[in-house]
């Protein structure tokens, strides 16, 4: 048993399959832990050489807003980790345009490069996946 987010058991036979994994993020950060624990799964998934995408819609778009400063609530700021995803070859981050606009956000407000897509395109993205994870 390994500590923390480790415990990756690469020796397990995954049969060389490559599946399309989509991580759906619909919840705001900090009020609940879902955003953080979703990100922890995404990081682990990098080791499995799957085709990984992240979708941010509804309040999930708040997860990737820049300028987060969590010291006053004494909680760890995990938003810089989204910038580290590129180093794990996880580069497909999608933000839903309608969700972003309903919250007064613009593309330049995000901490990491994202592709802004509309609701119809988000539906296409969901439809094209093999495994959809939500927390």
């Amino acid at each position, binding site marked *: 048993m390994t500590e923390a987010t480790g*415990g*990756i*058991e690469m020796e397990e036979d995954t049969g060389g399959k490559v599946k399309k994994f989509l991580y759906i993020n619909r919840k705001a950060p900090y009020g609940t832990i879902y955003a953080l624990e979703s990100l922890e799964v995404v990081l682990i998934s990098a080791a499995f050489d799957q085709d990984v995408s992240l979708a941010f819609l509804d309040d999930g778009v708040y997860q990737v807003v820049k300028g987060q400063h969590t010291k006053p609530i004494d909680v760890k700021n995990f938003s810089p980790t989204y910038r580290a995803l590129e180093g794990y070859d996880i580069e497909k981050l999608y933000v839903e345009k309608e969700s972003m606009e309903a919250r007064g956000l613009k593309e330049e407000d995000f901490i990491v490069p994202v592709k802004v897509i509309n609701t119809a395109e988000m539906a296409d993205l969901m439809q094209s996946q093999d495994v959809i*994870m939500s*927390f």
Partner: protein
Amino acid sequence: MKLGILINEGPYTHQASDTAYLFAKAAIEKGHKIHRVFFYNDGVYNSSRLTEPPQDDRHIVNRWQKLAKDHHIDLVVCVAAALRRGIKDENLQEGFRISGLGQLVETGIQSDRLVTFGD
């Protein structure tokens, strides 16, 4: 078909674990195979051997334990989620095992379907 299950909420507080259990039981009755049940987020609380519901209530932890034993289901509790919530080998019910998050990704890869139950 080979099914994987992900449970993200604790017992009694949310219906997620109840629905997942009844789904799993129905799937087995129809001849499907439950590959693994992965407990994440507050889902890790489903594995506490100290759980003691009122006598006229269902015992969610022991129900999973029995189903897993009868049908060879792998009950995996995420170590990172478990540690920050006070679930350790010390209070882990027999029949569950603590392991890494990689087991969840692996379940997604190996299963024909991953069915998620949460809040």
